């Protein structure tokens, strides 16, 4: 068995009797494109060595990426499952592993395992609803998967508003796609903001939570009983957005977000992301806000 080379997309293979592909054994992935989004965020396109995707996933799910010999980390899959050619990961440089990933070039190989976790309920709860996406900085990464899924299945959903902000205009990720695709899709309104005034920026200036409140109170974005909000961003942003939504009478059962804790295994066994009786890697990363309220405040 020791000479058995393994790079199967499926978790069970029949190369020899009794062999089960363990979820901890990764696949090899090839980086086929790198886009510099911002000074510290790059989007990596990943394919199987023989071409095509490594696996199928749902919006909100994550995968473990690893530079062998450095370390392995959990990243949300930012591309939509409706993309049949490749998967993408938007990664901010902020530690040892991400520093290493940022130094890789097109053609480099990494290891990938997944997909892990649950997903945004795109085929159930979200169907037929008006959707408000609220993102800050790199927090757009998991929501982008949902947004593009919604665009590709446009008839299944109602009105869509995307409220997205960052520290500066240079820190907005996926700006090309936002301008060329999202802003040109019927029924989708994009509201951008940056934290501070900046030369050349004609758009809104101000923090995301305040912007959400302004848009809501002016009736530019409606938070009705048929609306579901999906939030992702820094914890402080989430906290204040939640306050703003609550002030406008939005129920916690109409709000979804993702949690992020340290992970190693991805399957609820290594113990790291345990919070209350949940494992964020397995029971999350997507939670409805009233579910988060039931967890101990350790996130």
């Amino acid at each position, binding site marked *: 068995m020791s000479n058995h080379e*393994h790079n199967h997309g499926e978790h069970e293979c029949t190369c020899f009797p*009794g062999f089960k592909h363990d979820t901890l054994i990764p696949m090899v992935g090839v980086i086929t494109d790198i886009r510099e989004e911002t000074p510290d965020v790059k989007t990596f396109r990943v394919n199987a060595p023989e071409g095509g995707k490594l696996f199928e996933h749902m919006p909100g799910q994550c995968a473990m990426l690893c530079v062998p*010999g450095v370390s392995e980390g959990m990243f949300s899959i930012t591309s939509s499952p409706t993309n049949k050619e490749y998967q993408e990961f938007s990664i901010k440089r902020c*530690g040892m592993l991400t520093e290493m990933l940022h130094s890789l070039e097109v053609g480099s190989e990494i*290891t990938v395992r997944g997909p892990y976790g649950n997903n945004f309920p795109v085929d159930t709860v979200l169907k037929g609803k008006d959707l408000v996406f609220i993102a800050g900085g790199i927090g757009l990464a998991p929501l982008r998967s949902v947004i593009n899924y919604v665009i590709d299945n446009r008839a299944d959903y109602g009105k869509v508003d995307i409220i997205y902000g960052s520290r500066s205009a240079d820190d907005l990720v996926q700006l090309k796609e936002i301008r060329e695709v999202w802003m040109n899709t019927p029924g989708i309104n994009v509201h951008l903001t940056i934290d501070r005034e900046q030369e050349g920026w004609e758009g809104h200036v101000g923090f995301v939570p305040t912007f959400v409140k302004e848009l809501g109170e002016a009736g530019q974005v409606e938070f009705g009983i048929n609306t579901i909000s999906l939030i992702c961003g820094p914890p402080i942003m989430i906290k204040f957005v939640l306050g703003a939504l609550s002030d406008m009478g939005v129920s916690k059962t109409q709000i979804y977000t993702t949690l992020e804790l340290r992970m190693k295994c991805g399957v609820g066994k*290594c113990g*790291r992301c*345990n919070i209350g*009786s949940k494992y964020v890697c397995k029971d999350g990363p997507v939670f409805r806000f009233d579910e988060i309220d039931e967890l101990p405040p350790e996130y």
Partner: protein
Amino acid sequence: MYKIAKENLASLFALIHETNELYLPVQVAGQTNFAAWSEDACVDLDTLKTVKSPKDVFFPQSETLYTCNKEDNKLRITPEALVDAPFVVFGMKACDIKGIEVLDRVFLSDPVDSFYAARREHGIIVALACHEPEESCFCKVFGVDCTEPAADVATWMIEGELYWKALTEKGEKLTEAVKSLLTETCEAKVEAEKSAVKEIVEKLPYSNLSLEGWNGDVLTEKFNDELWNELYKPCLACGTCTFVCPTCQCYDIKDYNTGNGVQRYRCWDSCMYSDFTMMAHGNNRNSQMQRFRQRFMHKLVYFPANNDGMYSCVGCGRCVDKCPASLNIVKVIKAFSEKGDK
């Protein structure tokens, strides 16, 4: 029911070893732990508790998962072979076997951990009932009967003779293979032994520890209790409790550069350590109080909530014996019930 004289056990072990790897309590440098049998091993069946629990027979302290090689900028992944030969673990106590039942809930739940599953599939457990439970034992509190271990074969050591009873198909097969060394006998002596040991168990200082207040919907109440702020204080964050514990299953996954490829291995880790939950953007349990609380909340509240009420403690008492700061789960349970009495 069969029996074999204690002085013939060496022959029994040799016979088992002909067709199986054999792990049993072995004394090395004055400390007894489960280890592979060899003819000159100092087998120690008298020490009640091995220092570490025998969990590492099924969940090794460190094990390689795969090797990753790089040639011409191409990565090649070679998974580590799974255990595929039968092995026998001799002398496990009832509490440690219950510990394996707890680990089964973790590693055999979907998705199954194939490294662990292969060991469970090929492992045959020969349990040894307790003869002299110690003061630090409290297995009774967690529903364990130390006189009647649930294994493939149960054995009792009585007056220099080992009584042997197969309980499963695997156990029957092993019994068949070593029958030449066993003699048939009746159960009378074993029944008398069980009653005698049960009497000792009743008198142990922690046997009447009450778990009242730990079941049901108590997560928020227990989590927010002020008691944790006092209880954790002596904790040194050394992680000894987690390493000797038969049910602690937290692990780390790391890379080791062999110079000829990168070996990915997993090893035991501990929720007592500050870097356990450390991320680039911060730590969600950054005080020792939080980490201390996590360990006991997990054993007594979170784990049972996901596992039909099964606690993730088996009352082996190793933490009672080994904690350098005399902190342990008994102290935690007592502190909460004393508070309730007031």
